[in-house]
């Protein structure tokens, strides 16, 4: 059966603490009681032994006659002697009484096994006899007389005093123990209450907390203990949550902008086309324009899905033998029209025949992200320079622009999911803040790195280092081509 524990932590701790303390103290008290009681009865036996020696020294047995030396002693000694030997008798080996005191005679103690044992061992032997309600402690001492005749001297003392002492000890302990328990329980209650007080504060603060308001945080008392640690840990978790929430809401703002723009255009075009329903070709023109917007929206939705992927997403690569030079050159050629539309001059220096194992689709995405950024955030009549070289077995792609540059404090965050720089946010240029995040993920999935060097006002340079794999590709990375396209 399980004992139902109190619900509150404070009561529960105090209760457990007190119970375990009580068990320990009870054990100690029981030990002490046993020890002291034993000592009290031992003292009684010692007293008996001392007196037996004294009595024996006063005793002379001659021809079966008992003579007390103290009869010749002065009166004071005799009185003392009489008092100390209220209970005594002297017996021969057969148990015949040679002498007895009146007190002892009344007792009628039989000549028993203990007396016989004493005659054999010649050591004092103790026993307890009862007289009426009270008990007596009795010692049997062997006495040797003339012609090696043995006698038994028996002396008894009342145990009343010793019993009283033991009883007092027992009462003392029985009264003291509950008092100790109660006092201990109360102090535990107070101490535990004080220890747990910050927990109440934390609970109260947590009830008011708003994860997105940095002013509402859990209290840190400054004691550096576990509760402080708890508060600090939870606070930092909230801080991360807040940052990620801010990035997410930022992303959603960017996204709604990106969605609203094509929707606005589509709506306007449709309305116009419906109002001036003149020709078939007009409709076709409108519809083909709308199709482009739909494609833009589809791409935004595709970004959204990427964003919705878990934080720890790892891009799965489909590596194939690939000429990186060709990809980089194609990316530069692919961006030429967009660059000239923006009055940007794009140029490339591409080292030829750089063959390795790459995921062409992902590298293409990486290149386009970097080139689009370099064109988008450039100055009028600006330049974008792309180069591909090798260094220490790594392919180095660098994309540099003559744009606004990125402030040092923003450089670390630029690769974060959904992060856009202050100037990018201020500009009307659309963007989701995902491009560089994916660029880094792609470079890292290839076992490479991406670095940024940037000077505000002069431009930025992204430098990607990718290991040139020439070895075999692992099984997991091999993905079969769809066989529908292999006629």
């Amino acid at each position: 059966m399980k004992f139902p524990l109190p619900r509150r932590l404070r009561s529960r701790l105090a209760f457990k603490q007190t119970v375990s303390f009580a068990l320990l103290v009870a054990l100690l008290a029981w030990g002490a009681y046993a020890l002291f009681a034993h000592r009290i009865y031992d003292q009684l036996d010692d007293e008996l032994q001392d007196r037996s020696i004294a009595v024996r020294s006063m005793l002379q047995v001659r021809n079966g006659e008992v003579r007390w030396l103290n009869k010749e002693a002065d009166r004071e000694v005799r009185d003392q002697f009489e008092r100390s030997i209220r209970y005594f008798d002297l017996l021969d080996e057969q148990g015949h009484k040679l002498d007895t005191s009146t007190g002892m005679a009344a007792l009628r103690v039989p000549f028993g096994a203990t007396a016989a044992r004493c005659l054999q061992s010649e050591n004092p032997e103790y026993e307890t006899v009862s007289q009426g309600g009270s008990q007596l402690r009795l010692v049997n001492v062997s006495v040797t007389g003339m012609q090696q005749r043995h006698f038994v001297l028996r002396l008894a003392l009342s145990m009343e005093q010793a019993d009283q002492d033991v009883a007092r000890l027992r009462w003392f302990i029985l009264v003291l123990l509950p008092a100790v328990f109660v006092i201990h329980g109360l102090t535990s209650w107070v101490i535990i209450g004080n220890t747990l007080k910050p927990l109440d504060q934390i609970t109260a603060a947590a009830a008011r907390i708003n994860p997105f308001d940095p002013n509402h945080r859990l209290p840190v008392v400054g004691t550096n203990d576990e509760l402080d640690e708890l508060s600090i840990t939870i606070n930092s978790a909230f801080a991360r949550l807040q940052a990620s929430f801010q990035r997410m809401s930022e992303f959603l703002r960017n996204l709604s902008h990106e969605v609203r723009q094509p929707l606005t255009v589509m709506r306007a075009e449709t309305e116009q086309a419906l109002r001036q329903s003149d020709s078939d070709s007009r409709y076709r023109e409108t519809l083909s324009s709308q199709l482009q917007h739909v494609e833009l929206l589809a791409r935004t939705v595709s970004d959204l899905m990427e964003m919705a992927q878990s934080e720890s997403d790892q891009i799965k690569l489909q590596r194939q033998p690939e000429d990186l030079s060709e990809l980089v050159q194609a990316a530069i050629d692919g961006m030429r029209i967009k660059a000239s539309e923006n009055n940007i001059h794009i140029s490339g220096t591409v080292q030829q025949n750089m063959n390795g194992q790459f995921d062409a689709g992902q590298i293409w995405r990486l290149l386009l992200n970097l080139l689009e950024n370099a064109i988008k955030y450039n100055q009028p009549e600006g330049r974008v320079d792309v180069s591909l070289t090798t260094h220490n077995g790594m392919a180095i792609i660098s994309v540099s622009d003559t744009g606004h540059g990125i402030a040092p404090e923003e450089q670390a965050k630029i690769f974060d999911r959904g992060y856009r720089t202050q100037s990018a946010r201020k500009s009307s240029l659309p963007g989701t803040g995902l491009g560089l995040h994916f660029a880094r993920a792609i470079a890292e999935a290839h076992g490479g790195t991406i670095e940024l060097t940037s000077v505000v006002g002069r431009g930025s340079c992204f430098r990607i280092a990718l290991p040139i794999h020439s070895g075999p590709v692992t099984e997991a990375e091999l993905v079969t081509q769809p066989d529908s396209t292999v006629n």
Partner: protein
Amino acid sequence: MRILVIEDEPKVARTLVKGLEADHFAVDLAGDGEEGLQLATEIDYDAIILDWNLPKMDGITVLKKLRKSGSNIRILLLSARKEVSDRVCALQAGADDYLAKPFSFEELLARVHALLRRPMELLDKLSVEDLELDRMRHMVTRAGKQINLTQREYAVLEYLMRNAGRTVTRTMVVEHVWNLGFEGLTNIVDVYINYLRQKIDHGFEKPLIHTARGVGYMLSSNQ
């Protein structure tokens, strides 16, 4: 040509049926996996357009059951899942092609035509007008003049020539020549078509590579 569409979303199903019928196909519609499987085993269709998520029996199960029964009917699987691993899973289960939603109908149509053309024997030489491609020697000539192409350019051209006279979409080209990772970034095809135009059509009176606006490209001797 008779096509079975197994799709439970009414709007998508209606678009598919209407579009395919406009392209002169006979179309049957099944609203769930079980009905679809029954129709597919009873009637000899030329192709099936199968949705992944279906009530009663999902598309992959339908696909596997059909393949297990020995059917080699052309099947195009539709799905909202666009992960590369999902595509691979679908193709391994026996799909002939895979298309992620949302898709353009032109894309679907181009793929259905490609599917129906599939049992074409592999010729050693492909030719369109005076453009010739020798598969054995990996050589391309136009009007007898040899043209040097990179590996990727060659692959793009081969795909265009194999589907000569038919529109191929950018996604189809990318999936064939590169890999599935170009989702939404198929403009690499435009770059390579540009390269090919420079090498094949430049300097010749009659261009062979044509743009199908908003859809893709076509290699054809017709203007």
